[in-house]
């Protein structure tokens, strides 16, 4: 029983950064913009958040700095991909390569330093539930915050006018423009949200998951999140499920080792990536379904006629 609780709790922790960054990317893609720069924005968020917390001693300062850094990075992307109509694949890749380099450069002097990370907070009553109590309701603040963001995103997309606007822009920017919607503004906002969330997800890694900074500490999570959005067919509910599934996959090797599996670490460490490919296969072999779910204008730059 204790083991199960521990595994579930670790799954939630491992799934949280994925959930955060993927929720941002979901909104971004729903507006028709594919930002492959998640990994770069996460890394910048992680390093900026860590440095801010280290120098001020405040976790809140770290979080805010990380989100602003992610946002600033995403604006670089937006200028290229939204305003200048650059190829979104290339611009996103550029953002990842740039963010990886810049974060390593900025963080070089901070490797090996440590901070007090986020502490677990037990929610009264709920945390007394058997098994789930400790797994779900004895977590750090950011885990709870990720649920709030999830609920916000789900409700926004489903019930708000803003959500309708966002979806309209993503499905048919031309029609949206003809109806007086500001396509580029909506896309800028969506990209900005994605950037802030990626920054936050990065900060989760450097302030809560492992309170320190190491080069490339995201180890592909930004890319996994992109696969996760495809896996979720661009729907928040499935995204939540998917994030924890991927979270479970990423701690599977620890669990197996804990159970006494004597398999080489390096082979077990491949598992999250193998699982990601398997998920992609499962979800993509029906091209018709994939096409129906994909926001219609995804990846297409839009230039309103002046």
């Amino acid at each position: 029983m204790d083991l199960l609780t521990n595994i579930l709790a670790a799954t939630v922790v491992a799934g949280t950064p994925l959930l955060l960054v993927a929720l941002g990317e979901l909104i971004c893609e729903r507006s028709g913009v594919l930002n492959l720069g998640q990994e770069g924005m996460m890394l910048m968020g992680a390093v900026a958040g860590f440095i801010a917390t280290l120098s001020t001693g405040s976790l809140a300062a770290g979080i805010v700095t990380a989100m602003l850094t992610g946002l600033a990075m995403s604006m670089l992307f937006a200028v290229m991909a939204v305003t200048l109509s650059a190829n979104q694949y290339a611009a996103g890749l550029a953002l990842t390569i740039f963010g990886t380099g810049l974060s390593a450069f900025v963080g070089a002097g901070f490797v090996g330093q440590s901070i007090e990370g986020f502490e677990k907070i037990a929610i009264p009553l709920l945390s007394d539930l058997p098994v789930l109590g400790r797994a779900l309701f004895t977590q750090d603040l950011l885990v709870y915050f990720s649920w709030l963001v999830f609920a916000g995103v789900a409700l926004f997309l489903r019930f708000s006018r803003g959500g309708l606007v966002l979806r309209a822009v993503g499905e048919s920017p031309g029609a949206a423009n003809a109806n007086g919607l500001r396509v580029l503004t909506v896309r800028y906002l969506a990209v900005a949200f994605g950037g802030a969330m990626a920054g936050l997800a990065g900060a989760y890694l450097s302030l809560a998951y492992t309170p320190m900074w190491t080069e490339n500490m995201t180890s592909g999570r930004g890319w996994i999140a992109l696969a996760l959005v495809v896996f979720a067919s661009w729907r928040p509910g499935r995204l939540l499920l998917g994030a924890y599934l991927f979270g479970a996959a990423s701690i599977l090797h620890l669990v197996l080792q804990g159970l006494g599996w004597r398999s080489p670490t390096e082979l077990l460490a491949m598992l999250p990536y193998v699982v990601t490919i398997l998920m992609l296969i499962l979800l993509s072999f029906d091209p018709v379904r994939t096409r129906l779910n994909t926001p219609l204008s995804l990846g297409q730059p839009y230039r309103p006629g002046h």
Partner: protein
Amino acid sequence: MLQLERRPEASTTLRWLSPLLALALTVATGFLLFLGMGKDPIQALTFFFITPISDLTGLAELGLKTAPLLLCAAGLTVCFRARIWNIGAEGHFLIGAVAASAVAVSVGEAGGFLVLPAVLLAGIAGGMAWAAIAAFLKTHLNCNEILTTIMLNYIALNLLLYAVHGPLKDPYGFGFPQSVMFADAALLPALINGTRLHIGLAFGLLAAVAVWVLFARSFIGYQLNVVGEDHRAAAFAGFSARRLTWFALLVGGATAGLAGAAEVTGPIGQLVPQVSPGYGYTAIIVVFLGRMHALGIIAASALLALTFIGGEMLQIAMNMPKAVTAMFQGMLLFYLLTCDAFIHYRIRFRRPLPAGLSQPAAPAGQEL
């Protein structure tokens, strides 16, 4: 009011000027950055761009690092021209290195002129096999190649780590995760005696020539171009997108796999975990910077090779983090894409029109 307006025709001048502009902007930003860090910017830029290539040894080192970049970039050019977004050169490179090392280690001290070709072929085959996975996933299971190739890169890295910690580990290596040193028969001959430069650079140049021939003289190159420009037109013409995807990815795997093999049989002489400082990823920048053209990628490979050596130089001489390399590379690509926007668009100054009036819409669509 400043407005972005589509040019009636793409500007050829800017197409070739853009990389130079991007380089100038990168250098200028680097200048400001070093100044902000309290370092002497002139000195730092000299160490970065000039000192490394001011003697024969330096030039040889430049060639040494140009070789893997050029090989990877040649293969990626074939993919990117057809808009197949293969991000997997890093993985192909690593698997190529592991496969070549496996053969080199198992041959051991046995000599003979067949050893080296066998080792290199193993590298090529390894890279191709790794690329074939992505090709199969794309053509038969409809998986996005960006995501699969990235995931395969991480898997390849873990396979490499497994190899040096497990089956290929030197049993007498004092526990270091690395293979034995390869026998002489498995090592690439030097290109210039007395330097580390080996014939891997010749492979790279040959690959660039092959790319030129492919796109300038062959039907399959033409088909790849058409698929990249307009996949519907290609489908109407009866070109098989599936066959072309396989072709492009296998070529990409072969060249990057050869690059990996040439790295372990060239300067390193054994399999180590740090066999690639990210050549496969940097090669993506090379392809964009080199305008997907044979001559362009040769020049771009040399420039990006310089950023690797320049970064090391700055680390030694001015105690700066080695990551300055990756930052410069990222900046370069960023500026390049921004400058590239002006190949197709131009900025016009225009007074805002009275409300209710609008100008005819510019034609939609874009090219890279």
